[in-house]
């Protein structure tokens, strides 16, 4: 962030601090006057929602950690003790467990919004790549958190996922032994997963700060995908966006609360209430729902290394999205052909998720294979090709012209404060 003009505050103490450490100027600049495109819709609230989910997860997780024991002989019972004996332990645990799902819902909507409106395109490539890294770290954190209750799904999920690394030739087996700290998933594994599950959310917090910093350099994208051309195209972050985001957060929290209070185990798996048993594999191992599309890709490829590479590749591919999509037009609104393929991709992801939850045989296997092939086709062939072949529709001249239907200049000027650096 560039050096900015210090803000004058009424409170002399605030001024005294601010002249020595300009945090108030920074907050005032980044969250008060910060210009937001005036046409952002509710999909732009999911970044803020995801941020709030991270805070909720860290807060509940900290207090759960004070009651949890990360030893194989104690872990399962310590979670049951949290549920039955600890004051409000059930609430903390259900908020945390369902919070993981809600966090992923928010992040998936946030990602698809970015893809629909082309938010990854120049100059926001680093912003997008930071987002992909956040997604990866989130997946690792969620996976390790799911192992901690030490139920059957915890144990066998950990076994299957750590065994993924054994697919790599030569280095595979030593890596797996290193991950386990033994010859199978056991106490050393549980201990290190707990340590990492505690650490990674703070790594996430750091990444989120970088993600936000990168965002505030070039500002938010918007549904039209054209840059604001002046103060008539933007509104100050506060109160316009704070109120809009706040309202979205409240609605999101209501849905979250429905899960926590009325169907807390809906997104979990009943087998995880059976203590881990290294000698019996559950008949049907399924990961948490948010991993299902990737799990379907893993199983779709009839080769171990190939399946693992497809699964990791499907995520790594996202980081290259800014360069795979060759179109200069950001928003799908002006890309009539890509818009349809975007929805096909979204449906493909849902179908892959459903196939991932089904047994890997018969027609589900075939569906997963077609879905996987389409996923890679979309990113590797369709996107580069469409950038060349598609004829986009006419872009509007400016945000205010499009939003206010012409005579917006005066009306906009009345509402929006002028930008500091014109």
């Amino acid at each position: 962030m560039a050096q900015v003009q210090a803000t004058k505050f009424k409170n002399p103490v605030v001024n005294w601090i601010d002249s020595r450490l300009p945090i108030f100027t920074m907050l005032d600049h980044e969250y008060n006057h910060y210009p937001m495109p005036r046409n952002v819709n509710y999909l732009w609230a999911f970044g803020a929602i995801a941020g709030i989910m991270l805070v909720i997860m860290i807060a509940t997780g900290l207090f759960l950690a004070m009651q949890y024991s990360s030893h194989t002989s104690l872990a399962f019972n310590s979670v049951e003790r949290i549920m039955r004996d600890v004051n409000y332990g059930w609430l903390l645990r259900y908020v945390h467990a369902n919070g993981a799902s809600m966090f992923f819902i928010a992040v998936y909507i946030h990602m698809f919004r970015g893809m629909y409106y082309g938010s990854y395109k120049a100059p926001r490539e680093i912003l997008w790549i930071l987002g992909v890294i956040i997604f990866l770290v989130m997946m690792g954190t969620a996976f390790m958190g799911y192992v901690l209750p030490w139920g059957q799904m915890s144990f066998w999920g950990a076994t299957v996922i750590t065994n993924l690394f054994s697919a790599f030739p030569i280095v595979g087996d030593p890596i797996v032994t290193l991950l386990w700290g033994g010859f199978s998933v056991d106490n050393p594994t549980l201990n290190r997963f707990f340590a990492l599950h505690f650490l990674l959310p703070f790594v996430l917090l750091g990444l989120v700060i970088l993600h936000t910093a990168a965002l505030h350099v070039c500002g938010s994208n918007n549904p039209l995908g054209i840059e604001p051309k002046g103060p008539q195209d933007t509104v100050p972050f506060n109160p316009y966006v704070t109120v809009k985001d706040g309202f979205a957060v409240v609605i999101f929290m209501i849905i979250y609360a429905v899960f926590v209070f009325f169907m807390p185990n809906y997104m979990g798996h009943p087998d995880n209430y059976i203590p881990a048993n290294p000698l019996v594999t559950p008949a049907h191992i399924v990961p948490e729902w948010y991993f299902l599309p990737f799990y379907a890709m893993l199983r779709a490829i009839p080769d171990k290394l190939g399946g693992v590479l497809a699964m990791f590749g499907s995520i790594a591919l996202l980081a290259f999205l800014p360069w795979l999509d060759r179109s200069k037009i950001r928003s799908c609104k002006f890309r009539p052909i890509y818009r349809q393929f975007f929805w096909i991709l979204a449906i493909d992801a849902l179908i892959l998720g459903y196939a991932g939850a089904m047994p890997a045989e018969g027609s589900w296997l075939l569906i997963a294979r077609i879905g996987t092939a389409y996923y890679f086709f979309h990113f590797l062939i369709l996107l580069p090709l469409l950038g060349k072949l598609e004829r986009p529709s006419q872009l509007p001249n400016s945000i205010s012209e499009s939003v206010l239907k012409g005579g917006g200049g005066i009306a906009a000027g009345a509402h929006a404060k002028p930008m500091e650096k014109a």
Partner: protein
Amino acid sequence: MAQTTHPPGTGGHAASGGEGGSRRDFLYLATGAVGVVGAASAAWPFIDSLNPAADTLALASIDVDLAPVAVGQAITVTWRGKPVFVRHRTAEEIESAKDVNLNDLRDPVADDARVKKPEWLIVIGICTHLGCVPLGQKVTDPRGDYGGWFCPCHGSHYDTAGRIRKGPAPANLVLPTYAFTGDTKIRLG
């Protein structure tokens, strides 16, 4: 010494003749190399601490008495935290394991090379795909298309010699280190 304080460029930093420049380059590279080696050697204790500890490695070998296992039955023994399958094979099972064209196998090994005594098949009961425990130890379990074991996780089929025949697993069920200490006694490890 005075020469090394010259700003780069004037002292012929990149020029071959500049003695001060080349000494500075050498010091720079040497410091960098020592730093990298130092960082790597400092990192190793951290990484290696994650590997199996001495008490995990010092797992005693175990003795198993196979006398009570009748023909057609199988038992599961825990060794190094892993299940070991011991199956007392029937004559038909031995026959079907031997009667296989090795060219048809994904991981071709003759049945003789997988057993010490034909009637006792002893394998580690962990699917070589992603580490699930295959079904087939009980007579009532599904045993797959080849009468050995079937992994329910991702659908791998093993035959009566524990060899992979169908499904995503890349290799046969692993053989543990063991020896017969008596006619029906084995020591694992």
